[in-house]
């Protein structure tokens, strides 16, 4: 085998960038932002059930938002877009967070039943509150940082159910309009953090495909500014 030093320029010639696109609530905003940044998203907008949409400059790969850090950390996708809530919950995933895209704005909150004193009462009489959430690590960090002890109960489905039938004293969840909370007789008690869509990159891709990633970052910044 002949050993030939390829150098920086050749390292980049590795086909189009793979971009992880979140399905669900962030999809619409993500495709709009990509369009505005000059990335062709027409294939991904159709009714197609395909997961991968190859393009000349970029391949779009659609997935659950919570899978984006996994794919990007491993380098299976070079760059990706997902919510800050996902990044906070998976803080141990080593991905570079390059840009706040501004859309998909929602709040991570602590909520309890309207007019119900369970949260305070458990805290006072039992020294510990029970919190149902899809974000156990965010919840634990928050309560730890505010000096309270908490039992987090991880649930996968509608988290609003938990305090209504006595599984938990309250919930930590993501709220956009607050309508779901309201309809389920819940109210926001504390605001934990505001979350928006973020542009992330794989650590190695960020080094070896610097020019492409910098350019896409600049175009996304321009497209989502203001």
């Amino acid at each position, binding site marked *: *085998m002949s*050993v*030939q*030093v*390829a*150098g*920086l320029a*050749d*390292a*980049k010639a*590795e086909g189009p960038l793979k971009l992880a696109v979140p399905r669900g609530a962030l999809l619409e905003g993500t495709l709009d932002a990509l369009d505005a940044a000059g990335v062709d998203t027409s294939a991904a907008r159709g009714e197609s059930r395909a997961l991968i949409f190859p393009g000349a400059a970029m391949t779009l790969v659609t997935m659950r938002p919570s899978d984006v850090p996994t794919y990007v*950390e*491993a*380098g*299976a996708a070079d760059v990706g877009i997902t919510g800050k809530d996902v990044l906070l919950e998976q803080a*141990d995933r*080593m991905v*570079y*967070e*390059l*840009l*706040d895209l501004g859309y998909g704005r929602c709040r991570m909150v602590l909520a309890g039943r309207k007019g119900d004193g369970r949260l305070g009462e458990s805290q006072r009489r039992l020294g510990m509150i029970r919190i149902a959430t899809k974000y156990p690590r965010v919840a634990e960090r928050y309560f730890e940082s505010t000096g309270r002890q908490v039992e987090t109960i991880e649930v996968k489905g509608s988290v609003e159910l938990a305090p209504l039938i006595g599984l938990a004293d309250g919930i930590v969840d993501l709220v956009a309009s607050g309508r779901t909370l309201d309809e389920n007789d819940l109210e926001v008690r504390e605001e934990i953090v505001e979350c928006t869509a*973020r542009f992330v990159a*794989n*650590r*190695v*891709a*960020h*080094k*070896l495909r*610097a*020019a492409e990633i*910098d350019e896409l970052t600049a175009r996304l910044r321009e497209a989502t500014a203001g």
Partner: protein
Amino acid sequence: MIHPIPPGTRDILPDEMRELRRLHRSMIEVFEGRGYDEVATPAIEYDEVLARGDGRTAESAYRFFDERGDLLALRSDMTVPIARLVASRYADADPPLRFCYLANAYRAVRPQRGQMREFAQAGVELIGAPAPAGTVEIIEVLEAALDAAGLDRAVIGLGDADLYRQLLTELEVEGEARKAVLERLAMHDLVGLEAELAKAGIEPGRVETCVALSQLRGGREVLEQARALGGEAVERATARLGETFQALEERGAAERVQVDLGLLRDLGYYSGAILEVYDPALGHVLGGGGRYDGLLKRFGVDLPAAGFALYLERIHVAQMEEESRRGGSV
């Protein structure tokens, strides 16, 4: 019957072992060919001794007591044990000293492909050779090792560990705020970095400068771009990097080196030049290193030093990926 082994450890069976052994041999051959003599140290050390080298011993995944009640730890790398070895056994030797190793180390990481809690490292330590000549030497050894492994597309990132420490001092960011900023930088969380700098009272223009600085990576031209952003700390770091890069160029060894002002390795003992190794076939860093001119002093011998370590399992994964790429599949 299946008997479990601890998470993050694994058995290596003959097919893999044969390939790994070939890789091991080629690494040691390169190192010895350049005057680095192989040493071995115990896998277990006194926790106190390891902590002397790296205050942040949180990465030692395994700590336990021996029969006398002394606290022991499994080493998390070989740099600290070799610093101990040099201070204990070579205190009066004439520098520079050149050692290489092939050893298992242990860290509390989330196990995944190429990243286990018990992992093999091959590397070198060059003790008593200051920058830039010492740095250039280890980069050349590293390049030879990558060539020997067949990773001809691998790239070496070259950064400066003191850049942000000095920059933050210049900006008078101290205490908790400083820690928060460095943490964001190490994670490359630019959104968080901007927020933390703003919180520390840095004016928007300079915040932008810091963020832009961390994004500069490429050839020699990024040194100029960095200098244009201004400041004493940047000036000093780019001068150090420029000197090293120039020496590499003169020796024809700069081809696969990427100057990276955003590089910040999280091991506490680095100072001056820092290195990271990437291959386009793998999304994970293959290895790293740099200078640790203050480390030996903590063990009582004041000598400049530099070195690197390659994660051998990851190199092996990259070899396989590169082979399948050359073979035309994927």
